[in-house]
């Protein structure tokens, strides 16, 4: 009854599409309009937190190595930390704006976890390639929430972060099981299918 691993990636990708659309909408209209309705202010931080919670079962049920378990648990922790910090700020329980730095921190940790737990080279198989691309994308894109923290009224940096989240969704949708990337597939990777 357990779904194949790539299907879990696709379900999380869908969550990231919704998250990216919400962030993009907030970037377009600005926080003052986005937060007119209270439920909307909680929407994307709540989604980030929920995805962090849902990452724990992934960590438990898809543990094919210790380093995978550590990577998945680190994603769960930083998603919950970033989502929880934003929820605390929206609710007024947290006051220091420095809590917003949890988002670039989450991206840095997530990207590093992607790179560290991928033991194969870029062209070993599709999943290896995607792990490298996603890892570097997350690390580089940490600049968006970081600059948004320094210049909170800049729509460009907010929108850049939103587009990064949508790019992450696209990359997760690209994930399939053993499949070549750009025609390359290591003979050690297994039989290509789907």
């Amino acid at each position, binding site marked *: *009854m357990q*779904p*194949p691993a790539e*299907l879990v990636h*696709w*379900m999380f*990708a*869908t969550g990231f*599409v*919704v998250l990216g*659309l*919400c962030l*993009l*909408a907030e970037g*377009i*209209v600005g926080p*003052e*309009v*986005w937060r*007119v*309705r209270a439920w*909307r202010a909680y*929407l994307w931080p709540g989604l980030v937190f929920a995805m962090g919670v849902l990452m724990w079962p992934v960590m438990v049920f898809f543990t094919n190595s210790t380093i995978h378990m550590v990577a998945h648990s680190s994603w769960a922790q930083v998603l919950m930390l970033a989502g929880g910090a934003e929820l605390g700020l929206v609710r007024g329980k947290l006051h220091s704006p420095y809590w917003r730095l949890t988002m670039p921190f989450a991206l840095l940790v997530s990207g590093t976890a992607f790179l560290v737990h991928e033991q194969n080279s870029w062209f070993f198989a599709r999943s290896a390639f995607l792990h490298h691309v996603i890892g570097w994308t997350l690390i580089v894109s940490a600049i968006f929430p970081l600059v948004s923290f320094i210049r909170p009224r800049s729509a460009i940096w907010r929108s850049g972060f939103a587009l990064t989240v949508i790019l992450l969704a696209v990359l997760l*949708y690209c994930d399939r099981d053993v499949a070549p990337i750009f025609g390359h597939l290591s003979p050690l990777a297994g039989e290509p299918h*789907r």
Partner: protein
Amino acid sequence: MSTQVLSEKTAVRRRSARTWAITALGPATMLAGVVWAFVQPWRITLLHSTGQGFWWLFVEPPLLVVLAGIVFAVLVAPGVIEDLEAYEDDR
């Protein structure tokens, strides 16, 4: 006369670029999912469902993208547009 012109202008509200952008986000996402379905029809397992298990029939990536667009267009965008227009009227 001028009052009439003013009221006509108010009646025919010009939607701002930001309003159009928010309006377009959901349909654009849905369109992306539909285009993807045509480009990679094998990603929709329902089209060749024989012998497929529950998860392969339940999780259809292009349809999930369409669903995400519908959720945003129906549940989020209308309220954002309403609040944006009210905000722009107040300015």
